[in-house]
């Protein structure tokens, strides 16, 4: 299916309430809200550039519960890149990522070539912090994936998260910027910005 293969599919996993939907909606729509609506499965599409042509970035926001194992397996096997979100206010939420990470390894095999970003969200809530930045980094090292802390609420590192994830893709050049040439500069700039904040 030609249209499908042109899509670049990103899947967002994590326990319920860590802020997956908030991150996605902050990125896609630029909005945030305090109330909580549980997600079942939503997918948003955006036009991006891929190998200098236009393609669709498809972001799938998943449920935190394990209600649909089949659906989860399907989105892993169809996904190109993964965002694993926990909340820095909950150690439990980091623990809950383990089975998902393992399932990605199991279905995808060679995970090193697959862009995976471990994300500690809600880093605006420093007073409630249960997971230190170093803990997140350590886990990322173990999983051989990238790491970032974000706040969907403060719009901190959100766009960077998605750009970084796409930068990890080595098999093709994917970028949020539709104009391919500009994007390299942009990428580097954003990379720097992202790093600065994390440290």
């Amino acid at each position, binding site marked *: 299916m030609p249209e499908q293969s042109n899509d670049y599919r990103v899947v967002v996993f994590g326990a319920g309430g860590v802020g997956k939907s908030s991150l996605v909606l902050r990125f896609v729509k630029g909005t945030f809200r305090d109330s909580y*609506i549980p*997600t*079942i499965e939503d997918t948003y*599409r955006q036009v991006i550039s891929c190998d200098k042509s236009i393609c669709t970035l498809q972001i799938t926001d998943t449920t935190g519960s394990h209600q649909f194992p089949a659906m989860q397996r399907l989105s892993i096997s169809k996904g190109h890149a993964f965002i694993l979100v926990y909340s820095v206010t909950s150690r439990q939420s980091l623990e809950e990522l383990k089975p998902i990470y393992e399932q990605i390894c199991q279905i995808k095999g060679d995970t090193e070539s697959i862009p995976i970003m471990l994300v500690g969200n809600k880093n605006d809530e420093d007073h409630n912090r249960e997971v230190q930045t170093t803990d997140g980094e350590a886990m990322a090292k173990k999983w051989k994936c990238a790491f970032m802390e974000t706040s969907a609420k403060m719009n901190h590192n959100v766009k960077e998260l998605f750009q970084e994830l796409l930068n990890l893709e080595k098999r093709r050049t994917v970028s949020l910027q539709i104009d391919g040439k500009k994007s390299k500069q942009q990428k580097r700039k954003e990379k720097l910005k992202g790093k600065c904040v994390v440290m």
Partner: protein
Amino acid sequence: MKPLEKFLKKQGSHLAARAVPGSGGQLPRRQSVSKILLPGFLKEPPEDLTEGGTETTGDGRWLELRPPDSALRSPTSFSSEELSPGGGGGGETQLSPESVPTCCWVPLAEPENPDRLVGRVLERLGGDLTAPHGHGCGADILLDDIVLTHSLFLPTEQFLHQLYQHFMTASAIPSPPCWKEDEAVHRKRAVLIILLHFLETFKGILQEEEKAGKVIKDLYLLIMKDASLYHKLEDEILKLHQLVETVELKVTEETHPSSKQVKPLFRHFRRIDSCLQTRVAFRGSDEIFCRVYMPDHSYVTIRSRLSASVQDILTSVTEKLQYSDEQPTREEALILVAVASSGEKSVLQPNEECVFTTLGINSHLFACTKDTFPSLVPLPEEIQVSPGDTEIHRMEAEDVANHLTAFHWELFRCVHELEFVDYVFHGERGRRETANLELLLQRCSEVQHWVATEVLLCESVGKRTHLLKKFIKVAAVCKQHQDMLTFYAVVIGLNNAPVSRLRLTWEKLPGKFKNLFRKFENLTDPCRNHKSYREVLTRMKPPIIPFVPLILKDLTFLHEASKTLVDGLVNVEKLHSVAEKVRTIRKCRSRPLCLEMESSPQQLQTKAYVRQFQVIDNQNLLFELSHKLESNSQ
């Protein structure tokens, strides 16, 4: 030569006619569910009424249905349309003469208006306590008629309210002077009998009738308080207790059940194991998941009551999309649109309810603004197909047929009797959900498309002929099982023009199969009001899965042939004919279906396959495939 092909072609025009929103406040029933079958089918008048009529001479009632001198109708009350051959409830062939003891049915002596009919029935029921069953001969049938069809002239809650009123009157002390001794008890007993029969009939769907539930509760409490009844009507009271329990009426003051389990309705949310489980009926209060797409094919999944209105659905979607508390300015209002794989779009009205089960097989719900409406296109997976052999090639025709029949029996059993009445007569007196009937019709159409899809995805002529053979065998086995629904669907599927035009494929079919298929075509031939089929059906003993679309067609004709109210009086004959039709359905299911099937892994695989087809329901796409396979046929 191929009558069904003709019949399939006819639908196009009917569809167009149906797509036009209905007049008045009545919502048009959207065409998509029953796309293949119903519209053309229902509109096509029986070709030869007298033929059908003479067949039922043994059972004169059918002929009495529309005598011009009927006590209920003056000749002038017939519109010219009704007198045309297409009108009239004739042409009916009773499924079985013994389904109802004909000797017993005597219409009420006098026609009545809707408000007094219930009183009349009560008189009839309470009138003769010495009769064999405690009430008058034929009263059983009258009772059943009224319970099944009262919604044609009286909303259910009002019907119950009248019962309540009658019970109150009978409880008054002192009784009216004109009443005989025991008259009050007789009347109370009659109310009880109607209530019992009502509860028994409505079992399973009463939870959905909130207002009716309240009246029942009041009536129940009233009866409970009436100590005078206890020594005379112990049996009835006991039965009432039991029934009230089994129908799960919330007799105690209590709100909705907090968290019902979400039922898998759409393919996306069906777990692998759940499709193998026995189907249970859907109810309006059930929660389901549904994807709602945006013009760019983004989607959100909402959790909704099955009976939710379009407005409710849109509210959930808006809530998800405008994921922001700080956005006070309302964006342009969203509309909900069903987009079929063919690209056909239909806008759903905000007050429409229970829309999920009315979507076509590969239709999806889209939310968009008026501006983006023109840009809506079907999902890519609905318009792209990759030819190739599927699982069916590895399966035995008999296994496939067995699993089809077993599944369709489950679906058929999930349909409540009253759904048939409500499907045809709905819109006139409120709306009750007919989800299970809609799903059955949808499935019927799915099976037709499945046959065409499988044949047309198969690229080698030899294998294709083999598939034709397989499907003809499937039809034959289903017919043996008395599963006429699957039988019909498979035959119609093979007769669908993109398949039937494959001359090379059909030519290679062995003569034996050609003959068999010709027989099947004759059996499904709609001529003379489906005479061949009706004759075969008459000879069958339950369990039977009838070709449900034909039942709906018959009910529609009953409905259109005569008015429910004539000069303000209830047309009891019509109620009776409708109820008779419903009783034929009851009879089909009066005995359980037992198919012997192993549960080997291979069988389970076949079972899973049969229960979740992936079909192409886009006729243009099917034609495209067909022309690719055999371009110069014809």
